[in-house]
């Protein structure tokens, strides 16, 4: 194969139908891999594919060029059938430099498409990637994979030769050349990207023209260069009819709050301190002031949560968001909201830990922190979204429950959901359940801790209400009156009451959906972002005739009321998690069930192949 293959004039190429493909764009963090992947996602969505994405980037903002730790990648799986995950193994890898090849090659399936940018394979970059010699010269590489060596930089420069731009600016368009080429290979429409280029570079027509030309040049190269003998077509997936958009988890959380603010008709105050991977929620909310969203970039995590609590005391919806390290700092504040019995929503966008850990990588290891990570007994409601789009409903639900029960609600998302996107069926906002806020104004019979018999919620009183002046605080208080009390029996009663109030939230939980037989050999129980990996693995096992079902918990505290019964209907229970076994401990403790964990803590989503293997092992038929 030659990198300067002559075009085949009007050459006829075959187009093969495939069901799904997993493609990863990888390059230096300055190579624009994230935008390339995002655009390919939009193209695929517009082509009617179902899809799931996995952006993966270094924590360093501008990591040194060409290094292994500076590699940034974007992976997506798209297909004509239901797509649950970004995929385990790659059908195609685009490697823009030697470091990207080195880091990602092992994930490429044998026989997979390997597209490399030859220009970047020069001695300096090879050395930084730790290659003693050029790996592209190894015959084994071309034997094992369908290797396409293309001088994408050179071809881009030539396509832009006559544009009045610096060589550096021209060179920066090479990612769009790659996108054009991959778009041709998978028959993706270019129009969404062409439109997006015009929007993104509206301020500089010459930059817009350069990227447009690079994109088209890449596409034309695929069509005409004789090195590519076939392209692939994917039928549109069967998806529920309606209007769709691409949705990431963090945007969905923010928009869920917007919906809740509009529906509840009170201001929403979001206190946050910048932290990866939660910052984009603050940034998104700050753009939507028209919804009466008031964002406070606080001086620290503690101020962020306490400002939210102050807002709730004032009769607004107080929300704070962070990642694990920040949640640890907020612990005392959350305890205040527990005892003051004020509504509070806390987003925890989990990342790898302990301590600073892996800021840009995903993990599910904050479940115990969410449930127990405060002094004394301070129960909160814990819920978790299953997919990026589900984050919208979870945020809305968090506000609804917090306000109805006067209780803190912790939402456990993670880095994978936060940045990952999926085609999302846009809901009819009118069908969202009402958020009923009751601010007490009636003086007669008022006490600060008088409880609603159904929810045990105490009355929410907005300061400014005449005749209802009262004091609350962090000291233990007598039930009903709210007066400070050190009385032993009262404390015992209040500890139980706060716990019971959280337990009562179980009445909000719909019956658990069982994916598969209602009784059988293996039940796989998951929560949070592992939904896709688990579902794909379970459906594969079911297709093989295995007696396997799965359930996915959106409510972790309290647990669904029907869960105990469901667990007993299967011989074995498997709990896959991106931690060393947290939900599995809760289930064992709560239901005395001999559940076993499947645990990988690699900073990455679980591979559905691995879950499938774990199911097989449990069935004893590996």
């Amino acid at each position: 194969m030659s990198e300067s293959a002559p075009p085949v004039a009007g050459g006829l190429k075959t187009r093969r139908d495939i069901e799904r493909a997993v493609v990863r764009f990888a390059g230096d963090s300055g190579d624009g891999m994230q935008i390339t992947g995002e655009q390919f996602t939009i193209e695929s969505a517009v082509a009617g594919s179902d899809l799931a994405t996995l952006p993966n980037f270094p924590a360093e903002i501008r990591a040194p060029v060409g290094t292994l730790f500076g590699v940034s990648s974007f992976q997506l799986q798209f297909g004509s059938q239901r797509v649950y995950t970004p995929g385990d193994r790659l059908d195609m890898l685009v490697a823009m430099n030697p470091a990207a090849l080195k880091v990602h090659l092992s994930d490429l399936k044998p026989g997979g498409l390997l597209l490399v940018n030859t220009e970047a394979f020069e001695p300096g970059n090879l050395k930084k990637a730790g290659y003693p010699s050029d790996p592209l010269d190894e015959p084994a590489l071309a034997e094992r994979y369908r290797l396409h060596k293309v001088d994408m930089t050179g071809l881009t420069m030539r396509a832009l030769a006559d544009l009045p731009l610096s060589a550096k600016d021209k060179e920066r368009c090479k990612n769009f050349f790659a996108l054009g080429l991959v778009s041709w290979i998978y028959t993706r429409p270019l129009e969404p990207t062409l439109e997006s280029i015009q929007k993104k570079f509206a301020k500089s027509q010459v930059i817009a023209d350069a990227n447009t030309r690079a994109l088209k040049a890449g596409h034309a190269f695929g069509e005409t260069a004789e090195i590519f003998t076939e392209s692939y077509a994917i039928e549109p997936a069967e998806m529920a009819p309606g209007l769709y958009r691409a949705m990431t988890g963090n945007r969905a959380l923010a928009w869920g709050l917007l919906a809740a603010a509009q529906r509840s008709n009170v201001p929403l105050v979001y206190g946050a301190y910048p932290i990866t991977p939660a910052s984009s929620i603050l940034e998104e909310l700050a753009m939507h002031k028209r919804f009466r969203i008031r964002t406070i970039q606080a001086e620290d995590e503690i101020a962020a949560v306490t400002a939210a609590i102050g807002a709730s005391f004032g009769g607004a919806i107080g929300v704070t968001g962070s990642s694990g390290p920040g949640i640890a700092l907020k612990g005392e504040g959350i305890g205040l909201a527990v005892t003051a019995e004020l509504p509070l929503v806390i987003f925890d966008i989990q990342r790898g830990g302990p301590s600073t850990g892996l800021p840009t990588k995903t993990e599910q290891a904050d479940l115990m922190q969410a449930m127990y990570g405060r002094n004394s007994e301070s129960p909160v409601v814990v819920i978790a979204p299953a997919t990026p789009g589900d984050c919208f409903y979870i945020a809305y639900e968090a506000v609804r429950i917090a306000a109805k029960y006067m209780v803190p609600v912790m939402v456990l998302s993670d880095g994978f959901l936060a940045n990952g996107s999926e085609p999302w069926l846009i809901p009819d906002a009118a069908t969202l359940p009402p958020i009923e806020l009751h601010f007490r104004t009636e003086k007669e019979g008022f006490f600060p801790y008088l409880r609603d018999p159904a929810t045990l919620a105490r009355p929410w009183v907005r300061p400014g209400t005449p005749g209802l002046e009262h004091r609350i605080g962090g000291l233990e208080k007598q039930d009903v009156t709210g007066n400070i009390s050190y009385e032993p029996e009262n404390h015992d009663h209040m500890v139980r009451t706060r716990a019971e109030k959280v337990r009562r939230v179980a009445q909000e939980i719909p019956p658990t959906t069982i994916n598969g037989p209602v009784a059988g050999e293996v039940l796989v129980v998951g929560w949070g972002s592992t939904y896709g990996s688990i579902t794909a693995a379970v459906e594969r096992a079911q297709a093989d005739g295995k007696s396997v079902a799965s359930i996915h918990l959106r409510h972790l505290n309290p647990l669904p009321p029907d869960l105990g019964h469901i667990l007993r209907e299967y011989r074995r229970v498997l709990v896959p998690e991106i931690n060393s076994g947290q939900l599995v401990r809760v289930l064992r403790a709560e239901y005395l069930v001999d559940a076993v964990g499947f645990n990988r803590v690699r900073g990455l989503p679980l591979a559905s192949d691995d879950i499938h293997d774990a199911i097989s092992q449990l069935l004893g038929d590996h």
Partner: protein
Amino acid sequence: MSATEAGAAAAPTPKYTKKDFESDQDVRWCPGCGDYAILSAIQKSMPDLGIPKEDIVFVSGIGCSSRFPYYMNTYGFHTIHGRAPAIATGLKVARPDLKVFVVTGDGDGLSIGGNHMLHVLRRNVNVTILLFNNRIYGLTKGQYSPTSELGKVTKSTPLGSADRPVNPLAFALGCGATFVGRTVDRDVKHMEEMIKRASAHHGTAFLEILQNCNIYNHLTWNVVYDKESKAAHELRLEHGKPLLFGPVDDRHALVMEGAQPKVVRAKDVPESALWVHDETKVNAAKLLADLWTPDYPIPTGVLTAIEAPVYEDIVLEQEQRAISERGPGDIAKLLTSGDTWKID
């Protein structure tokens, strides 16, 4: 939206007395504590604020001073250690219509909550901060505090403390405070006057109240308690008046010598050379904040009161502008905006 937020407050504020601001809770400070006098002065000042009592909120952190809200018949929130300024910031952003007081102490406000104090002051949130400074941790039974003098012998520093104290007024000014004042728990009239001045300020008002802990740090402020000493050392600041102090028969004055304040006999300098107090001059306030015995007098009163943009005013103004320019937010419209595609 409350009536006041809607600008529809029609009913005149009732005529209150001190009693209207007393809650039904037993006050639990040690007998003889300076906090009693402060509580009384605040309750007495409230009727003169002209604010409906349901619109008043007292927010506190932890410590002896922070029990304060329980004793006020207004809205109150006794929160966690050091965080009252942050709670108050969230409250004011949600409810700019409320009158919010933060009651704190030297440990709560300048040690565990020092960071929040810095940021509430620089943001200029419209709250009144009353910092009771007794130079000791009282509630935890007598450890030294961030305002305790160097070498202070306490239970936790049997050989004397090794850390230098922070000066609350200089700290506040360094944070960009727009109102800074000092008063003394044993000077009830001045205290009431200062509380009213601080309360009327638009922006963050920082009032240090020198307070006696008769159990763990008795007479720590004796220099301004003892009648003779007070007469000799207290410099009462009054806007537009020259900086004079000391007994009537031996008045002293402050003058500037280069970049350094200097104490002189009043009769030795011409009136034109006297330093006249100007609350609008922050630089002068910074010099005053550092003055203390034995070399200088102890200033009480308002060191500075200036106007500056207020945090929640800007937040609300941005919101109102966004709504008036583009209408209130509509989630249904937002959901279908941007790149969408239809599947039939």
